[in-house]
């Protein structure tokens, strides 16, 4: 029966080519727009580290002075080096890392190879294990290396390719700011999107190319890229990156054994803040934040408002396309009232007529879905060539593909219900009399 209905539907579509084409085209446009924006939304709101996102926490302390302070405001996103060092020393989590970033020229002792300006991350030793960095050669440094300011470095696959033509470079030497560092590890290509552990240089920044111990980076005077908030006398005449300066610029993350441990860790942070205030360092009332990865992304409003706006716009468009399709289907159906009358007189039940017209709407939906998929691909191609820092991430995956087809089918069936119902209501006698 279904096949027969399908054949009838195809015949009917052929009979009114223009109208059918209009409906399919409008539906496909709506589906294409929706899938394009939804894919961007899906890619951007994804969990960058699904296995661990509930156990990784960002730490915020409110270390600022009282000038311009307002109750209930968000504490600074970063910590002072002093506080980060103190928390790291206490080791209250399973793993913890303090870190920040910069950009520096990385070269090798070979006059032929020009130094390459690379994004740099300096961090304490737990960094790689916490964020599941994938190793190609070697490994990261140890806590002892942190303490000893070891002259070691980890480089990305891309930098390894440029400096050492992709060979195993563990044990080789690189030059950063005139100092020699020994490569102890090479990462596989690694992309955390969003770049959640430090979003001050763009939410969708690439992973860094050079990693070295925080303690090693400081005497190198390697500098700092990103956000820095200072208060009071700020650097107090010294470098803002000094231990004693009143500037926050260090990201601090902690990994706990299980999500439920967060309460205990938060209590520890409150205790730490109170001790600092007692010592005269903190002036503000206790105001700590401990957010897991997804809460952190939400707090930093990482999903661009434009993307949400686009998605809503596309769904509004799809809604208009569906209303349009209902109207046109209805017109098409009622035009065939005579045919329906004949079918009914020859014994077709109301149910059969209803099924026939729903199948017809479904066929249009199916064609619309395929065409919509083409439009979505074209849309995503446009997005990838647009000037956003997330543009290159816009790819259609299997789940979105299934969603496209599902959405198109549901949309067209919804559009088909009303006309099919009207068709089923046609009274055979009246129609036959008219003819």
């Amino acid at each position: 029966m279904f096949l027969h209905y399908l054949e009838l539907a195809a015949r009917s579509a052929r009979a009114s080519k223009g109208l059918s084409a209009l409906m399919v085209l409008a539906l496909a446009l709506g589906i294409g727009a929706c899938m394009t924006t939804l894919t961007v939304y899906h890619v951007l709101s994804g969990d960058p580290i699904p296995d661990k996102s509930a156990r990784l926490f960002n730490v915020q302390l409110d270390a600022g002075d009282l000038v311009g302070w307002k109750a209930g405001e968000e504490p600074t996103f970063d910590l002072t080096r002093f506080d980060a060092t103190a928390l790291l020393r206490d080791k209250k989590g399973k793993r913890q890392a303090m870190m920040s970033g910069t950009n520096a020229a990385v070269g090798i002792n070979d006059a032929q190879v020009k130094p390459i300006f690379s994004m740099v991350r300096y961090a304490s030793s737990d960094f790689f294990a916490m964020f599941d960095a994938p190793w190609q050669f070697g490994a990261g440094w140890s806590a002892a290396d942190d303490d000893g300011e070891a002259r070691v470095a980890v480089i990305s696959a891309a930098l390894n390719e440029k400096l050492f033509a992709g060979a195993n470079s563990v044990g080789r030497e690189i030059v950063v700011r005139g100092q020699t560092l020994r490569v102890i590890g090479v990462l596989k290509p690694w992309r955390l999107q969003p770049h959640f552990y430090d979003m001050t240089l763009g939410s969708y920044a690439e992973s860094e190319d050079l990693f070295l111990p925080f303690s090693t980076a400081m005497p190198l005077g390697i500098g700092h890229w990103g956000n820095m908030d200072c208060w009071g006398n700020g650097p107090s005449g010294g470098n803002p990156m000094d231990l004693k300066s009143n500037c926050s610029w260090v990201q601090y993350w902690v990994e706990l054994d299980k999500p439920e441990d967060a309460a205990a860790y938060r209590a520890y942070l409150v205790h730490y803040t109170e001790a600092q205030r007692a010592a005269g360092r903190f002036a503000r009332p206790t105001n700590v934040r401990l957010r897991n990865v997804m809460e952190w992304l939400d707090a930093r409003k990482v999903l661009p408002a434009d993307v949400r706006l686009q998605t809503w716009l596309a769904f509004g468009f799809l809604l208009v396309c569906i209303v349009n399709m209902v109207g046109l289907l209805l017109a098409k159906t009622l035009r065939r009232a005579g045919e329906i009358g004949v079918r009914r007189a020859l014994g077709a039940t109301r149910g059969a007529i209803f099924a026939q017209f729903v199948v017809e709407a479904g066929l249009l939906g199916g064609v619309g879905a395929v065409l919509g998929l083409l439009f979505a691909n074209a849309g995503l191609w446009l997005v990838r060539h647009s000037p956003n820092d997330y543009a290159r991430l816009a790819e259609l995956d299997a789940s979105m593909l299934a969603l496209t087809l599902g959405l198109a089918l549901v949309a067209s069936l919804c559009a088909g219900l009303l006309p099919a119902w009207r068709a089923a209501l046609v009274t055979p006698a009246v129609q036959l009399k008219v003819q």
Partner: protein
Amino acid sequence: MSASSTPLTLVSSAPRERGAFAATLHALLLDLRPILTTLRRHKIAAGLIVLEVALTCTIVTNALHLIQTRVDALGADSGMAEAGMAVLQVRYSKALPPERGAGVAAEDMARLRALPGILAATTANQIAYAYNSNNSGVRLQPGPKAERLLVAAQYAGDDHLLATFGLKLIEGRNFLPEEVLDANKVFSVEEPRIGQVILSKATADKLFPGRSALGQSIYVFGDAPSVVIGVVEKLSHPFVSRGRGDGGANSDEYTSIIFPLRGAGFYVIRTDPAQLAAQIKAATAALEAADTGRVVTQSNPLAEMRAKFYAQDRAMAWLMGGVCVALLLVTAMGIVGLASFWVQQRTRMIGTRRALGATEGQIRRYFQLENLLLTTTGIVIGLAGAVALSQLLMQSYEVPRLPWGYLPAGAVSLWLLGQVAVWVPARRAARLSPVAALRS
């Protein structure tokens, strides 16, 4: 044949003495009743057209408004005379000790200014469209208890900054060469002292409403005063209108201050706009020749930086525009489709009317009027929806309120769309031969 029992009404000719306009109006009113009767029989189809027009109206008015806000952003004034400006960045493979920064910058400035095509050159800690900004709280009293009146975008450059940026001094004077300080030295003591400062007019007006800012003292880094020596007409935050969020309630994108400090940072040059590309090359060559241990990593005309800075706004405006066009097209398609259906369905009625003496114009007008009625209903609902949607957008996306002007604009465009869309089916209806129509 009575008008109430059937839509097949004849239009009576209006009395001549009422004049042409009144006659048309009368004819239109007489047309209305049968239209309403017909529409009552096609409630669902009519309702769908109304719904489609309403949704389109709601979305298009708001989308047009969003486009306008983007276009406004594109046209925002940074306060600088941007044509002919370029920004250069120098990087060293071996770190330059911070204490040498100002000395090297002074030498480089001398080098750049010596080039024949360079009209002006300065160092700058920040510049519009370069994605970095320094912001400082400004107080009018010393001491830790003093309130920060506003947060200003804090520029630092030498005595050529005003000329290079093309800023217009409206009060007071520029920095003197001897007033320009070494930034590194200034900030390497507990209590930074910078004797002079130039304010933007917006900053001056906010700090000293109703009086001249000249000679007044402001406190920025500590308890040492900086005396206001000049006011420039306009200088925006480096993020222009996007910098609005940085400063809190009392600041906007034009609250900025300029300190006479020289240090490592951007090198900004001004040349004849026609020679910009050649002059950038010359400047790059001069800088790289002076010290082989460094590279000019960035050298961009400011106009290019501006285009890149606004690229996403432009893309978003195009996208919204595309969706608007698609929406209007789909709605027009819907109107054409349903109107054609109705024409086909009412062929016999049209034939009867024509046979009884109705003119082509009267038949056409019938369909046009019907469309006007439907779109008007849709527009009324759609405008209410537009206001509601605007309210929602204001709450969730910090979009400004929809200005009233968009409502009539949206209404007129949908009326026009409806009339254009119905034209073809209406004309087809009018041209039906009465004999053929009756026989069908």
